[in-house]
């Protein structure tokens, strides 16, 4: 059974601006955010059937809710994130403590080598992809590749709206890839095309990419994705996936959605 790490949005809000989505003037409706988060959790637990591990929220760390950026996990190995921006660097210690408390073998990257966890490291069982340039340093991937003994193909993220790989790139359990091609340069698109055959590449349209259609959680044949992405939904249903659209617009104010709110542990 799949396990996901999550963190309740008790202190979630927009207290700084570190991506193009964040506007301090665009205040979060906290009650609504809490309702949406619990709705997502209910879908994950009851409809998809995953086990949720809950972290304790920390006052003053509004983005701790985005656990995809806790680090990268494979088996019993965990590499806690090193955030690019000082605003989120305060989260590092909490995520690392959590991994240690759970008994993971923790590998730490040298200070200054930024890497924002599963937000920038995604893949298929036989090969991973790493998003760089916006938040993670490409040099982190050669180290992670050694620690995890996995191939990691770096992909440059060229559109600041898609600042983490998981905002524009979602590998699915059947080997398909849900992605937004213009978020990558021609080298990245060619590298993706080299590994994933055309019939398995599902390109989402721009308007749905802007709703973070790619920020989806895929567990088996279930896909949990932000509500309001009908074209993406059709693409997925045509390949036999069961859709679970969840309204998450309060979190979009901060540049995050379903996938950002979870970290796959197994």
């Amino acid at each position: 059974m799949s396990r996901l790490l999550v963190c309740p949005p008790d202190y979630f809000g927009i207290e700084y601006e570190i991506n193009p989505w964040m506007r301090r003037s665009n205040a979060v409706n906290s009650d609504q955010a809490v309702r949406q988060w619990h709705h997502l959790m209910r879908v994950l637990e009851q409809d998809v059937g995953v086990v949720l591990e809950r972290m304790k929220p920390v006052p003053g760390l509004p983005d701790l809710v985005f656990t995809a950026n806790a680090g990268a996990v494979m088996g019993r190995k965990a590499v806690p994130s090193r955030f690019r921006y000082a605003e989120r660097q305060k989260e590092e210690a909490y995520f690392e403590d959590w991994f240690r408390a759970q008994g993971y073998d923790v590998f730490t990257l040298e200070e200054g080598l930024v890497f924002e966890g599963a937000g920038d490291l995604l893949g298929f069982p036989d090969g991973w992809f790493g998003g760089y340039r916006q938040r993670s340093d490409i040099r982190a991937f050669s180290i992670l590749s050694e620690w995890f003994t996995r191939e990691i193909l770096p992909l440059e993220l060229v559109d600041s709206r898609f600042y983490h790989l998981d905002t524009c790139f979602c590998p699915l359990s059947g080997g398909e890839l849900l992605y937004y091609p213009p978020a990558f340069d021609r080298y990245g698109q060619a590298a993706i095309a080299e590994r994933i055959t055309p019939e398995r590449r599902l390109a989402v349209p721009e308007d749905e990419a802007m709703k973070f259609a790619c920020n989806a959680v895929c567990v088996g044949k279930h896909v949990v994705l932000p509500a309001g992405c009908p074209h993406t939904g059709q693409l997925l249903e045509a390949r036999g996936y069961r859709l679970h659209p969840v309204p998450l617009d309060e979190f979009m104010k901060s540049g995050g959605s379903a996938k950002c709110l979870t970290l796959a542990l197994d």
Partner: protein
Amino acid sequence: MMHDQETVLIQGHIIDSLILAKVLDTILMMGGTFDFQEVHIGKTREEPSRARIIVRTSSAKLLSEILHAIQPHGASVESERDCRLTAAPADGIFPDEFYATTHLSTQVRLRDQWVEVEGIEMDLGVRVDPVGLTARTIPMGQVKRGDLIVTGREGVRVIPLQRPRDRDVFSFMESQVSAERPHGHIIGDIAKRLVQLRAGFREGKVGSKVLLAGGPAIVHAGGREALAWLIEEEFIHVLFCGNALPAHDMEVDLYGTSLGYGHVAGRVVPHGHEHHLRTINRIRAVGSIEAAVRSGVIKTGIMAACVRRGAHVVMAGTIRDDGPLPGVITDSVEAQASMRAAIPGIGLALLVASTLHAVATGNLLPATIPSVCVDVNPAVPTKLADRGSFQAVGLVMDAASFLRELARELGWKP
């Protein structure tokens, strides 16, 4: 010339991700060039690949822009250390493990900066001024106790010769020497260079001087008039020779013979073997070659042309010399130093009919200066060409034929 360079290392899954392709494309698109120093391609999907790339540019600014552009893609500048400096233990003695130069452009790293070694020449040491952050080659004999000399190889890099841009014989010869090759087009290309260099010389452009190092065979074989004309016409500006070339040149002027042979008729002249001694004695009596020319004692020939045109002459003596002539430097270390001092500003070197002077001059020349070695003995041009320069042309031919043909190309009418 592309002279600014830095080595970068890039590793990881750089092949299938096209990251390496992107980095190389970026270097080229921005106007730089690159060479692979080392490439390792992972044998499995999991195994990472690695490339060490030398990035070259025409300016330090462009280099810095390119490095700035490729660093986000993982190309990191190799951390280089400063070169190691050791004080010379005594006058005339390098410290152990001193770095011995090649004839290629060389840079040393001083306080995290690559500094060009001045006066590049093969088989010397490098002395560093740590205050002014400069580096210069220095011969073993000139080192002073306490001089800071580069030791080991760390923090030293040699810049490979770039293929010359001019599309003439110098860019194609690639150090080949052949007696069977037609000479006409080679001499034609040399003549074109001489015309370009003379124009530069007259405009006072640095690096426009032409050096000729030659032996007395030039005079014996009948190349004297052609060479004198080349000097008079300002195609040659520096002359390296020994005692014999000027002695026989002036012997022709005074007696009409060279080494006793009638210069025109070609017959042995009675007591002709004394002529070169009498010539040397005469010039010694006058006091100098220059005085002999200025006073009208010597009227024609190579030395007369040199004096009239103000050509820089270095005469290096040997143990078989008669006399020698005034001005011949008999201390060979001193002679070498005088030749070395005349090298800056040379844009082309003609090494004609003298093993001794050709090899000595070849050793003093940086690889960047095109050189032509002409000798009837193929061993001499071969030896010079083996220095590994793209711009060394070897011609197996008679000195006089070469000079006469070259002068004719340039308008000489015998």
